């Protein structure tokens, strides 16, 4: 199989403005990233905000130089042959406001298609077809400034697919969309990759469900490092021998989570406070450990409101790798 994307020991360090000249501040956004994405794959980069996903996408789309290592897209080096790479790629970002509000949906899409050399008549034909597919055909002559966020994102997604890229990058494509619009977008993405086996799609997301539902393989990334890379099923398989429980208990009210973490056989605990309750996500080395956990709850005067055993998810994989849930990482970093 041909490789569409390959990175070797890829790194990027940002100089931060405002640092003293003698002691310039730097931020390591990516470090030692090694990835190989095959042609025809829908590959996901999963990680919290600030993990380095967007930096990686920027490097692969020739918008940013790496400071270490190398990266190739469609077999071409991002630093040495950016102009050639640009003939093969396109990118869609979540929440982007590209285009011009005074132009209609068709005109905006037509304009961007022209920057890829698509003949005008063909572009207009493709625009109509794609707008039908994403359910935006009735808005073809609406000014883009009059579109809702969800409809605007659908227009952006059409822009990405319109130029028939060999490698398409989607950076948080469902960011800010409601549930229905997100589902439509995911469905369209999956359908496109299934119908175009010679194309490759790299998608970044911090939504676990999105990565799990869409991606053939997923790389979990945090603080600029790739922590694991495999199919969602294989990533979860490592946790299959563990027992995963979701406990809803009365509010912890100052009881430290360490109390549960120190129990032998408890591998990870994630605590999420809720209105009038506390949620404890537990990864246990074996099911029998639950008894000790229940006893501990009892000694701390905590009541169990609900208890569920569930299959491992990518969220559990993330917790296993990082030690905290993705929302905790986003909140604290």
């Amino acid at each position, binding site marked *: 199989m041909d490789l569409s994307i390959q990175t070797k020991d890829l790194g990027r360090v940002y*100089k931060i403005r405002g640092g003293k000249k003698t002691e310039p501040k730097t931020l390591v956004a990516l470090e030692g990233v090694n990835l190989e994405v095959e042609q025809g794959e829908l590959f996901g980069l999963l990680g919290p905000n600030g993990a380095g996903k967007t930096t990686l996408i920027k490097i692969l789309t020739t918008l940013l130089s790496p400071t270490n290592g190398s990266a190739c897209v469609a077999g071409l080096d991002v630093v040495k042959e950016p102009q050639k790479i640009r003939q093969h790629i396109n990118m869609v970002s979540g929440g982007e406001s590209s*285009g011009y509000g005074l132009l209609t949906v068709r005109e905006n899409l037509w304009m961007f298609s022209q*920057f890829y050399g698509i003949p005008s008549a063909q572009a207009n034909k493709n625009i109509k077809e794609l707008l039908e597919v994403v359910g935006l055909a009735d808005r073809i002559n609406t000014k883009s400034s009059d579109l809702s966020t969800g409809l605007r994102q659908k227009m952006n997604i059409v822009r990405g697919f319109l130029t028939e890229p060999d490698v398409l990058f989607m950076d948080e494509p469902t960011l800010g969309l409601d549930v229905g619009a997100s589902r439509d977008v995911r469905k369209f993405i999956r359908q496109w990759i299934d119908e175009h086996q010679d194309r490759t799609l790299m998608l970044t997301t911090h939504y676990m469900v999105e990565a799990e539902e869409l991606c053939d393989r997923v790389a979990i990334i945090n603080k600029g490092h790739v922590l694991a890379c495999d199919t969602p099923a294989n990533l979860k398989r490592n946790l299959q021998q563990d027992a995963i429980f979701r406990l809803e208990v009365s509010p912890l009210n100052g009881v430290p989570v360490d109390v549960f973490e120190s129990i032998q056989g408890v591998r990870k605990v994630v605590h999420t406070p809720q209105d009038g309750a506390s949620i404890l996500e537990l990864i246990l080395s074996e099911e029998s450990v639950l008894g000790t956990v229940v006893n501990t709850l009892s000694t701390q005067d905590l009541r169990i409101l609900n208890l569920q055993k569930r299959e491992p998810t990518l969220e559990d994989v993330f917790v296993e790798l990082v030690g905290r849930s993705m929302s905790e990482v986003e909140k604290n970093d």
Partner: protein
Amino acid sequence: MTEITKKHTGIPFFFQTVWARAYPRVVGQQREKSWMFFDVLLPLLAVSAYVFVYKAINAPEEYVGFVIIGGAMTAYWMNVLWSMSSQLYWEKEQGNLALYIMSPSSMMAILLGMALGGLVATTLRAAVIIIIGGWLFQVPFEVSSFTQLFAVFVLAMVALYGMGMMTSSLFLLLSREAWHLANLAQEPVYLASGFYFPIKSFQFWVAAAASFIPLTLGLDAMRQLSFATGPALGFLPVPVEILILAVLSAIFLTGAFLMLNHLEKLAIREGRLTESRR
């Protein structure tokens, strides 16, 4: 959309890009009618103030015409300043710049498209200012050579928009300071270019230095060619001014190409191409 589209390449692709980027500006003007107020009526007020000053001091009749032409050319300067030079900053904030850079089209074609679109849209505004101003104040136009007048206008525009393209590449690196720089450049150019008076009023070397701004010589030559007493108030002979404008055009267009290439690489290296919020 199952068949693979055969895409344009080379020169047809270059001009396809130019037209595509010019399109929003040409069409945008038709859809945003407020330009008639902001870009015609307001400049006419400034022009009127100078006209009344000249009339009050009994200045030569041609001065009124000088001011009308200056007022019309102000529209081009505003367009270059706010819609060319600083445009890439706004494009960056909007997320368009990354899409332009990432596309296989040439950035020179994109800038040229911006320039041509702006030029077409502004010409309409400038023409309205000249027609209304000329009619209101009964300006005695007396064109000595339409060919030379056309040549001066075209060269002045090529040089001016070439300068806009060159400075716009600087804005690849800038953030909010772009706004301040554009503000800073606005008024001094009004003065140095002689928008409302002949630059012969300056000392020779001051006028020569001001001639680096393409509008200065363009305006001076157009005034010489449009009024009977124009040559007497001109800074340099028209053929010399045409020659200098041609040289300036070549310098600014070449400069734009070189600076764009260099600054694009620098911006990619320093990570300044994408909008600051991401």
